[in-house]
Each structure stands twice: as C-alpha cells, then as structure tokens.
C-alpha cells in the first residue's frame, strides 16, 4: 500500500510538473508579464488610505530594467478571460491601474504592447500638478507632508524622515522646461539638471529641478507642465 501511495504521488508530481512547464512555456514565451493581482495589491493600499491625500496622485509605474525601453506608444495591456483593456503610459512609464474585481478573480495578466525586456511594477505617489503651473511653496510643503504621511503609513522606516523639498521632472524634449522661484523681491531661475524621476529608475536623463524648501514664502513657477512632482524625504 505504501509503495502504491508513493508511486501514485510520483505520477501526480510528474503530471503536475509536465503541465506546469508546458503551460508556463506557452504563456511566458509570448512576452514579459506581470500579475494583475500583484499590481492591484501594490496600488490599492493608497486607495484605501484614510489619511489626507487630496494633493496627491497615485500611479502604477512600469520600470524596465534596460535603459531607453520606455518609448512613445508604450502601453500596458490588461488581459483576462473576460477583461481586455490597455493602460496608456506617460514618458515615465506611469499609468492608472483600473481596480476591477473581474480582472482580479480571473488572475489577469499585465504585459507591455511590445517587447521591452524584463520589468517590474511599482506604485508611485506624487504631487498632483496645477493647471496654471504656479505652486505656492506652502502648498508644495503641505503636499509633501501628505506624501510623507502616506509613506509613514506603509513604511515604519519612514517615521524618522522629514520633507525637504520636491523634484520637478520634465519631458526630455519638445517643451520649454525652465523653472523659476518667484519671491517678493524678484524671480530666480532654479538650476536644471539631468536625473531620474524616482530612485531605482533605469532612465536617469530626464530634465529635473530639485527644489529644497526654504523659510521664505515664495512661488515655484514652471513654464510647462511637469511630468511629475516627486516629494523628497531625508
């Protein structure tokens, strides 16, 4: 009886392994992919967060491992048994993940619409842009504090951190991307550098302006809409 049980177990195991490998090859060879459930899990925490967040926005970011993989026309395709839709991505690879119960229940898949190599998905909280491109520094500080509140909610390690400023990230080309700090005594251009929008991004050649909060009351004025306004903690 024991040997029969062992043999049965071995047959079951071999059957399982064969089925797993053949199905995995069929699915995985098509393209790189990510689990909708894992993406949902990353994003929904912000949606359920009960703290102040009216000055913030949350995106799902596709983070390729290779530099330069994010290009125009890149989309994230959500595919399930009954759910099929595409998420438009901005130049930073960010899009809004629809929270759909059917997609979760069907264990739907997220995949880029063309090959970009290995990638990961991350939840990114940034400061919502203003339509007039004018930001009171007090508002920016308040938004940064909201983002820090959320960071502390999800990460006990963030409790010792403080808001120190914001990073304004602009498209690589096609728009004027100067930023000025407007005070009562005049305007001052803020230095533009090249850098990554978020820590861990492969692409580090975006025009960025890092503004550190000061004591003065002022306005940050951008002459085009930034791609993202990233809160900075230290």
């Amino acid at each position: 009886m024991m040997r029969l049980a062992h043999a049965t177990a071995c047959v079951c195991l071999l059957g399982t392994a064969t089925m797993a490998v053949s199905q995995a090859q069929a699915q995985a060879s098509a393209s790189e992919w990510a689990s909708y459930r894992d993406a949902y899990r990353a994003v929904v925490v912000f949606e359920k967060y009960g703290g102040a967040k009216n000055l913030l926005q949350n995106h799902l970011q596709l983070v390729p491992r290779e530099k330069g993989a994010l290009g125009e026309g890149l989309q994230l395709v959500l595919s399930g048994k009954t759910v099929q839709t595409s998420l438009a991505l901005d130049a930073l690879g960010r899009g809004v993940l629809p929270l759909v119960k059917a997609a979760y229940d069907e264990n739907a898949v997220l995949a880029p619409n063309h090959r970009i190599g290995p990638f990961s998905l991350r939840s990114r909280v940034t400061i919502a842009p203003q339509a007039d491109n004018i930001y009171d520094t007090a508002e920016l500080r308040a938004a940064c504090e909201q983002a820090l509140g959320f960071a502390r909610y999800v990460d006990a390690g963030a409790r010792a951190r403080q808001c120190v400023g914001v990073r304004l990230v602009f498209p690589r080309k096609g728009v004027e991307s100067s930023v000025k700090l407007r005070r009562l005594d005049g305007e001052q251009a803020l230095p533009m550098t090249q850098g990554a929008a978020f820590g861990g991004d492969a692409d580090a050649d975006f025009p960025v302006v890092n503004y550190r909060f000061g004591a003065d009351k002022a306005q940050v004025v951008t002459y085009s809409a930034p791609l993202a306004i990233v809160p900075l903690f230290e």
Partner: protein
Amino acid sequence: MKKLFALVLAVSGSAASAQTPTTNPMPDGSRDMYAGLGVVSAPRYEGADRRKTSALPVLQVQWSNGIFVSGMSAGMHLSNSPTVEYGPLLAIHPRRTESGFGGRVGGVEGSTLAPSTVRTYDSRNPLAGMEEIKARPEAGAFFNYYLAPEWRLTSSVLAGAGNDRNGVRGEFGIQRLALQLGAHHTVSVTAAVSFVNRAYQQNYFGVTPAQAMASGNRVYHPDGGVKDVRIGARWNWALSPSWMLTSSLQATRLAGDAKDSPLVQRPTNLTVSTAFAYRF
C-alpha cells in the same frame, strides 16, 4: 493517501512552522489561492538521524475578509495597518509515531498502529517503544510588525500540542521578504527562535519511566525554554502568471533541554522541499 496530506507548505515568504502569509488586500468577495504538489526531504522527526522523502501538497488560500489557510495553519488578519499584522491562529501539530512525524511513508519498519507487548528494539531508532503522540489541533495568535516593507518581525503562540493537549509553543522571527533576484525570481529569508513550555518538551523530548521501560531510553525530564533556532530561505520562481515553482531550504538546530534529549540523534538538521503550485 492520508500520508500525502501530513505535510503541507505555504508558498508565501513565510517559512515559519506556524505560517502567516502577508496581508493581501483584494476586492471584496475575492480570494487568492495556490495549490500544487512537490517533494520534501526532512528528518523523520525533530532530532532524527534518518530522513524521509515524501510527496508534498502545497496549499495557500487568502480571502478578502482576512481569513487565510497556509499549510497546516489557518488564521485571520484583523489589522488594517500595512505595518502590523495580528489575529487568531489555528494549526495542526502532526502526530509522531515510532517511525517519525506523520507516520511512515516507506513502510520499512514495524507497525505503529497496533500496540504490542513483545518488542524488538531498533537500536537506531530511539522512538521504538515510545508512545505515539497524536496529531492535535492548536489554537493561538500571531503578531507581526514591519520594520520596513521588506522586513518583518514575526511572532506566534500556539497551545494544544501533545497527548494531554497542554503543550505550548511560541516563536519569534525576522524575515526579509521578496528579495528580487531577477525577473520573476524572489527569495525570502527567515531566522527564528522557538520556545516551548515544559509539557511540550516532555511530550516530544522527554522520557517517562514507563516509556524508558518500553523503549530502552534513559528517563529524561526536560524543562521548558528555548527549543530550537532556525534559518531558512524560500525561492519562488513565477514560471507564468499561473504557475510557480516554490523551493525551500531550512536548517534547524535544537537547543536547550531538547538538544540533550536521549531521543535526539542529530541536533542540527536540514529540510529541503520543492513544489509546483498553480495560482487560482
């Protein structure tokens, strides 16, 4: 076939004996489930010199209301905070027969089901002649705290093990969750120390005078305290959105009075497992 279900394993980052998967927010009315089959090579019982290899069913289910089943344990997440997890925990402590945990798989030793008054001692098996310890449901609680999203301190306490149902075991551990090794490859690492009360220790590592007569082991009355320390790693390879290969390596070293038990032949032991799991 009963043997097939004597050992089950969680596919989460947790490798703890009382496994608590991480909080998994999902739409109301949904669930996230892994089920599969693999193999495990483990010592026949805690402290055994000999090993056995057996089939390993894999099961982990989480529901949107917080209830989870993970290997041999089940519980409920009651916390709404992403940095704290706590709730009630239930588990099944496997039985231990003369041939080890969960009964025999290979069928190479004498019957453990029918009591016998005439015994031939197996000099290599200290459990020969020892009373069978029956499988017992255990009840308790867990509390986990996230130092950072990838670092989790874990703790649990369970009561009800042993023939008199008075064994209590607890565990403190630290886990590094979801270390990304490459696309679709993650590794979780765990270190933990477990504590037990005197009754647990006596059940699983002690020898009463009657048991000494029957088994030939010396009489041994251990005290409660630290039972073992362990380190482990779990490697999850997501082969596709639905299939995962989950493998685990765990080293356990018995400590305190458990280590000095006459039933213990090898205080340090390895458990290795690998299994395919399907995500439903």
